[in-house]
Each structure stands twice: as C-alpha cells, then as structure tokens.
C-alpha cells in the first residue's frame, strides 16, 4: 500500500536560533529529503501535541530546513520550549511556490512585516544563490519594535553588504535603540517609491499590512501581474482535502500560499 500523505517522516531539530523574544528559527534535518521550492510550506508535528504548517525560510538545496516560528498558539508554545536534538515529524512540501522562473532578469522588491519575512527569505536566498538570473534586490522590512526584527544577521550584516542589494528597515514605534525609519511599512514603501519598471514586488506580513501594501504598490504603478503575495490560513491536512483554508474555490494549502495580485482581485472573498 502506498504511503498516506498524512503520515509524517521523522526529522530532528539540529539547531535552534533565537531571532527575537517570540520568534525562533528551528533548523531541521528530515530523514527523507523534502525537496522544496522557494515559498513552499511543510507540516511540523510534535507527537502528542499536534501539527501546524509553517513556511520554509531556507532556500532549496540546503542540508537543513529552516522554520522561523512565532510563538502564538498551543503547538508553537511547546515548540519554543524544545531543545536541540528534539525529534519532530515533518511532511511536505505543500503548496505552490514563488514564480522564480518568471522573475528572471527582473528587479526583486521584497516587502515584509514581522514574521512575514520568513517565507520571503527563502526566495531572497534563492535569488542570491542564482545571482546572475536576477537584477537588483531591495528589501523593505518592518516590525513593531527593533527587537521584533528577525533574521538580524541577514538584515544587518549579510544582505546590506551584498552587491545590488538594498535593505530598508522600519519599526512601528519610536525606540531609544533605533535611529532608522519609524513608521508603518506601507508608509515607508510610499516614501521610498521604488520604480515598478522591470520589477516584481513580493510581499508578506500581517493581513492588514498586505492589504495596505497592495494599495500602495498600485499607487506606485505596479500592475497586478507584478505583485506576488503569500498568505497564511488555518490548515490541517495541507493537501486540499480537509476544507478549511479556502478563499473561494482555491485552497491556500494547495493552490496557494503564493498568489499574484491578479488572482486575489478575481476572488470574491477578501483574503483577510
């Protein structure tokens, strides 16, 4: 009998990196390869507690899979208490992926908020792996406070030093430890006004931020097929059968999580 898609494979947490006070990155080594593409997700399970779907924040072809997880619920609470070496269940990859092929030869504009940088990171790193295929990369990233910014090594050290890579950071509220931009991401985006020419914008963040970012991008002249976003819904099966993550007839787990703005606009239901 062939394997049921709901049955996970074993994985081991090799390393845990604390990103902020409520975000940790778990570096997992699965027993069998997952072979994901940038933007895809996987189900992580702690036996006895449950499963939840998370986006993979590392690019393809790495030994370890990174999951950057914010502490919000029952499972993530426990996940934040585990130690390196913990065994977890993993199944996936699920969903579609960022259209990295279509983006070749273009500028990439990443707009992220809070934990929303996690799925974007897989594509950023993928683009850096294939530097020749892509033009300039710009990242506009914001969080509530400076302490809430995640992937600090990447955003403060690694990425700003790369060629053709601009990093613009923002925080929502003023803080003594912050001398950068203070304000919301959509606002910052409007001020920076990146050109839509030969550019694809990729955004992820809290639903309300995505909503305003999409508006701003339109104002800046981005067309619907130049904007890509990745969404998050409650999921149980990850394979389009359990029926809860639908927006219209599309299942976020199977037909998403990555959607072009064009697709979102055709939907009758609001995505948030």
């Amino acid at each position, binding site marked *: 009998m*062939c394997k049921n898609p709901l049955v996970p494979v074993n994985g081991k947490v090799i390393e845990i990196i604390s990103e902020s006070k409520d975000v940790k990155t778990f570096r997992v080594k699965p027993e069998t390869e997952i072979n994901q593409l940038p933007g895809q997700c996987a189900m992580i399970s702690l036996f*006895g507690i*449950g499963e939840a779907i998370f986006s993979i924040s590392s690019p393809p072809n790495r030994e370890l899979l990174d999951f950057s997880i914010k502490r919000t619920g029952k499972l993530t609470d426990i996940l934040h208490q585990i130690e390196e070496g913990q065994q977890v269940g993993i199944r996936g990859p699920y969903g579609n992926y960022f259209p990295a092929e279509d983006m070749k030869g273009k500028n990439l504009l990443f707009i992220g908020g809070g934990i929303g940088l996690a799925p974007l990171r897989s594509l950023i790193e993928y683009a850096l792996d294939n530097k020749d295929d892509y033009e300039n990369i710009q990242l506009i990233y914001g969080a509530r406070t400076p302490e809430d910014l995640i992937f600090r090594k990447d955003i403060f050290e690694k990425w700003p030093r790369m060629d053709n890579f601009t990093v613009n950071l923002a925080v929502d509220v003023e803080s003594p430890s912050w001398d950068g931009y203070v304000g919301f991401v959509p606002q910052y985006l409007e001020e920076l006004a990146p050109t839509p020419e030969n550019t694809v914008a990729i955004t992820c963040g809290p639903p309300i931020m995505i909503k305003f970012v999409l508006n701003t991008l339109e104002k800046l002249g981005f067309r619907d097929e130049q904007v890509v976003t990745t969404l998050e819904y409650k999921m149980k099966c990850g394979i389009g059968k359990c029926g809860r993550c639908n927006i219209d*007839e599309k299942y976020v787990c199977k037909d998403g999580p990555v959607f072009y703005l064009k697709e979102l606009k055709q939907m009758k239901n609001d995505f948030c």
Partner: protein
Amino acid sequence: MTQTIKFDSLSSLFNALKEVEKDYQIFCPTKQDGTEVFLPLVEIKEDNLKATYEILSKNEPPLFSIKSFLFPNSEIYLKFKREKDSYEFSVHSQEETPTVVLGGKPCDVESFGMIDMVFLQEPVDTFYQQKRENTILITSVCNQKGPNCLCDEFGVDKCKPKVSDILLVLGEQTTQKDEAVYLEAVSERGENFLEKLDKSTESEGESNTPNLEGEIHQKDVEKLSPEKIKDIMENLYDSPIWAEFAMRCLGCGICTYYCPTCHCYDINDFHRKDKGVRYRSWDSCMFSNFSNMAGGHNPRPSKEDRIKNRFFHKLNYFVKQQGPLACVGCGRCAKNCPAGISIGTVLKKIGVGKHV
C-alpha cells in the same frame, strides 16, 4: 455468474447473510431506543427486523448517512510512543475484514462518488481508499420520492444509482407486491459477494428483479444544471440572503454532520504520558473555530460568512473544482435543521427550480 438472488423474506436474507458473517463485517439499519441506527448484524435480533424492514421500505434515507463507514467520524491513524528523547510512531493498522453496508439509499451511495473526487485525487487519501475498496455497498432502492427528497433534481437515479455494488429491491416496491427481497449485483465486487451468498443459501437462486412500481421516472422534474447554478451563485456573493439565513441559523453542526457529501475534517493529537495517538475527526465549517487561527485572526468570523461559505462550496466552488454540485438531494438538512435552512430553501431563495 450470479446476477440476482431472490429471498422469500427479509429474515431469509438475514439468515443467508449470517452464514457469511465470519468473512465480512455486516451493518444494517434498525431502531434502537426509538432512533434509527446502523448496527452490526449480530446485534440485530428478530424483533429488530420489523424496524429494519420499515427503514428499507421507506422512500427516505435513514437518519444518519452511511459515509461514516468509509470516512469514520473519528479515526486514529497514527500511534506513537516516547522513550526518553525519541519518539517512535507507526501507522495504526486498520481492520482488513471486508465490510458490507446494507441499507444505504441511492443518494447516500452516490455521495461517495463526490467524496471520491476529493479523497481519491492526488495525493490519494489511502485510509479512505482502503475502506472504499474493502466495502460492499448494498443499496436499498427507492421507488418514490420522500417529503424532503431532491434526488431527481440533483441527478441521482433513485432506482439505479451509478455508485453501488448490489441493489436491494423489496417485493412490495415491485409489481409483484410480495414479501420477497431481491439482491441484484451491479459491480464485480457485488457479483463476487452474491456468489458467496448463493452457495450458502437455499433460496430460489437466480432470477430477475421484477419491475419497480411507483413514480420511478422523473416526473416533470428538471435536472439542475451545475453550470447554471454556479453562474447564478456568482452574482449572489453580496446578496442579503446570507445575512437573512445567518440570523436564524443556530450555528450548530447538524447540516454538516448529517450531510452525506460534507467531508471536512480536523486532525488532532491525544496523548497520555508517553503514549499517544493522532486521529482525524469530522469537523464542521459552521463552527467558529473551524478557521480561527492561532494568532486570533479568523477569515470567516461571522455566522453569515460561514453559511455563505458552506452554500458556495456546495453550489459554486465544488462545481468549479470538480464539476458537479456537491449535493445528492437526500434532504437530511431539511429534515434535521432546527432553523429550517436547507439546500431546498436556499435553492428556492436563489430562484432555482420552481419545484423545490
């Protein structure tokens, strides 16, 4: 090859079934504490037979649909054990004994056609597939429509459903008007089962099922066109009718749990000390925590959103995804909903089919 077997009466059919009971798990409908239930054949006593006969002869589906035999209300699929830091998990093996479900109505068995589309499409849900292949469906046909039935409208043939292994016809439903019971094989699986049954019984053996009597033909009923309804629904997204329904909806899960085509599920873990299981159980899109996320965001926060989503799924999304309307017209929602919201009332409200 065995095609049709005639039994003198329901009890002679049951005696024949008892002969093969060691190879099959057989379930039949009957009444217990005044309520229709499916029980294993062994538990059906002589005095239950009258109730069983009544349920079979009724032109109305039994209280609860038979989908739970193929897609159980809750099923454990993973077991795990913890030893210090490591976990061991294994797939919880399912019973291999073939199951026979007697007494589903044509609408019930046709619903499996729809669940197949979802669960058997890639990636295949092997738990369902295994049960599906291991279950023989003996369908009790109807020769008339019941008070809530919309089978004709939804294209379900109440006399000869497409998805079934064996058809069960009661003599009283036919021109013969007798007490006999006919079993007619309509699939290979059904034929094999009848052959086994044939050897074990001294019934009259092969014969032909006499013709059914009653309103067997669709009378002036126009079959609903999935495409047409899908298009009508397209324009109803912002309609006030959903709020109207929501105002009287109780928000319970009756419609989803009693619906033979609803197939949403939930996955959860249960553990005690070092042992645990992972199980899936039915879930209902009418519950507020169905789509509520850990962070507190809920894409469908109000009853209106949920009721709209449910009927859009049945009458619009499913058509787009798979083709047919996700309803077999069994009428259980109409019978059981305490607030009188059913597929029939929705169709009426959206102006489809004057007959409903």
